[in-house]
């Protein structure tokens, strides 16, 4: 085969099923205590800091990391279960999710020992929020075009420029960002970017909110004016961040959060159609469930590859490509099938409200974590076409 694609049918081991029960019980308690409403994905996460700490107390942050950094040395498959149960319940994970999924693994790989000892245990306790600084005004998905500069100075670097679409920058304690340390070379357009850990409390950082069409507030523009970053906050290789950033993205692309962001409209549709839907309604549900089941089996399979120490870059990109297209189309399919919902359905209003919200959210889904076009380029490279 030119393209050897394998998605072996990995089954979650019994330890995951036990864990799943624990997570569901925990979330049920939190819902009962009024921490969040699972039927309100459109809310703001005002009460998230305490929730974040309680998740940390349960040992569900930094699950796969070494114990000496506060981690729990559990498997990717166990982490997978926690992630999907949180997502399905619409739990307010915004404060810790990026740190747990991406920033922590980057620090583990590239940060000096004393920084790891300082920061990683606090992530595991749910005390820290991270943002990712990749896109810039006029660069977007084209990371090579990043212009924001890190200029060498005594004992560190001075940052000048701006980042944009930075999720959670307004509540973040730290940002892991790529900055330009030298110009790209003619031979290598990827050259000249370096990854840094930035303390968001540093003087010279200004965070400007960007409102979204959903009415939510997650994105920001972050402006840096002579922001000092010490030498020991440099992560990895000077001018060589491109490889680091792309391997980081592999983690971002295959998880269950990449096809479950609008899942709630499917649940509400099933509820609204009732226990004995007509043929068209039943067929609609059946197709959507078959697609969901298939994506989940692919995603679990990729989690199994990560657990086995592989780097499934192409497979992860395929899961995200199919997954985001699916979660993006889901509100539109649900809208069509809503034609067969009886006017007496008890959740009629909820279904309409959630469908409208998910429809507004949908355009974002094929952009975050790499646009569909970028992902298809990665897949094409994996197929030997580039």
């Amino acid at each position, binding site marked *: 085969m030119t393209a050897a694609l394998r998605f072996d049918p990995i089954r979650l081991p019994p330890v995951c099923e036990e864990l799943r029960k624990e997570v569901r019980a925990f979330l049920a308690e939190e819902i009962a205590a009024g921490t969040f409403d699972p039927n309100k994905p459109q809310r703001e996460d005002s009460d998230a800091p305490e929730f974040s700490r309680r998740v940390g107390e349960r040992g569900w942050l930094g699950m796969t990391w070494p114990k000496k950094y506060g981690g729990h040395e559990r498997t990717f498959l166990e982490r997978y279960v926690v992630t999907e149960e949180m997502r399905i319940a619409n739990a307010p994970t915004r404060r810790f999710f990026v740190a747990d999924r991406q920033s922590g693994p980057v620090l583990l790989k590239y940060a000096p020992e004393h920084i790891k000892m300082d920061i990683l245990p606090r992530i595991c306790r749910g005390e820290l929020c991270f943002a990712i600084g990749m896109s810039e005004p006029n660069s977007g998905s084209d990371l090579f075009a990043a212009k924001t500069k890190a200029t060498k100075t005594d004992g560190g670097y001075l940052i000048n420029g701006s980042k944009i679409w930075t999720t959670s920058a307004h509540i973040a304690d730290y940002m892991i960002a790529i900055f330009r340390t030298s110009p790209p070379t003619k031979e290598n357009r990827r050259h000249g970017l370096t990854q840094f850990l930035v303390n968001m409390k540093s003087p010279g950082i200004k965070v400007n909110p960007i409102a979204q069409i959903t009415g939510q507030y997650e994105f920001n523009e972050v402006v840096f004016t002579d922001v000092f970053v010490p030498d020991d906050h440099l992560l990895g290789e000077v001018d060589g961040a491109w490889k680091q950033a792309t391997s980081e993205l592999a983690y971002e692309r295959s998880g269950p959060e990449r096809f479950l962001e609008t899942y709630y409209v*499917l649940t509400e549709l099933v509820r609204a159609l009732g226990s004995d839907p007509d043929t068209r309604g039943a067929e609609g549900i059946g197709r959507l469930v078959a697609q969901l089941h298939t994506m*989940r089996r692919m995603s679990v399979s990729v989690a199994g590859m990560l657990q086995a120490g592989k780097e499934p870059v192409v497979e992860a990109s395929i899961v995200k490509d199919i997954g985001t297209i699916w979660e993006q189309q889901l509100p539109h399919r649900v809208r069509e099938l809503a034609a067969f919902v009886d006017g007496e359905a008890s959740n009629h209003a909820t279904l309409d409200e959630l469908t409208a919200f998910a429809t507004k959210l949908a355009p974002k889904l094929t952009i975050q974590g790499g646009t569909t076009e970028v992902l298809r380029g990665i897949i094409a490279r994996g197929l030997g076409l580039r």
Partner: protein
Amino acid sequence: MTETDNIVVETAEKIFADLADPQTINADKAETWKAPLWQALSESGLPLSWVPEEFGGSGASLAEGFGVLNAAGRAGLAVPLAETMLAGWLLAQGKIAAPEGAMTIAPAHPKDRLTLDADGKLSGRARSVPFAQDAQHVAVLAQSAAGAKIALVPASACRIDRGLGLGGDASDVVTFDKVAPITTAPAPQGLDQTSLMLMGAVARSLQIAGALETLLDRSVTYANERVAFEKKIGKFQAVQHNLAKLAGETSAALAAATSAADAISSAEGFDDAVFLEASAAKIRCAEAAEKGAAIAHQVHGAIGFTREHILHRFSLRALAWRDDFGNESHWAVELGRKVAARGADDLWPLVASR
């Protein structure tokens, strides 16, 4: 289950490569290549993979057999291997020894019903029965007053109205007009017509996934060879994105089909989990066949539309296999009803149970 460490699948792949390779098929317009292929398959014991040794088969595991069917799909195989395997499996469920030669299975359509009367005669009509005209025997699942029955029937005792499926393989109407079976046996507890359809659906899912693997492979190879507008067409971004989509559909089909095969292979019977996995696999593989075959033809352009080119042997079979043992609409309605009956709050627990 991985192909590389599976001796049964390796045997199958070797026979397909030697006797059913594209050159052999293209060079033989009369399709006389099928006889030596079937001969070699019979000698290898592959058609009776799912028949225990005590009933005259080779006693391979369900997982190994599904691996063979995936490989058969990759080869676009045009002989009744899957059908004979399924028939042997059904007969073995009734502890009926498998006869020699090619077999097929009836019913192959979920809406057809065959009945075994009190006098022991079979009645009814089964549509789109694959390879019935090439089979010596038909394995039948029939309803009777005493529950489901499995019957072994000589094909010569049935009326067979010949038909041709979309993929160019025989797809016939088999009419049972008071036909006397060679032998009958009660079906074991839990094996009903839905179970038979699920088993056939998973077999076809693996074949579709295999055909898509080859469609992807050949399309990528072609895109890297064919030059147009002074470039290899694989260098055009629009073509690359189409092939990335084809890779996605192929991956989805493979993941769904192998997961369903694994579910059946490790389950005790046809429970809710198997129902979810098998019906979902057939739905998703059929959708993948539709999208994937279209892309493969798009990439190949006019040459892929010719009878001489090998492409249609995979694309049309992938499309034809959608219809056997319940098409995607059938299974979507069945799965949707089951999900609805369980209720909205049970949907995620059902999905997450796999």
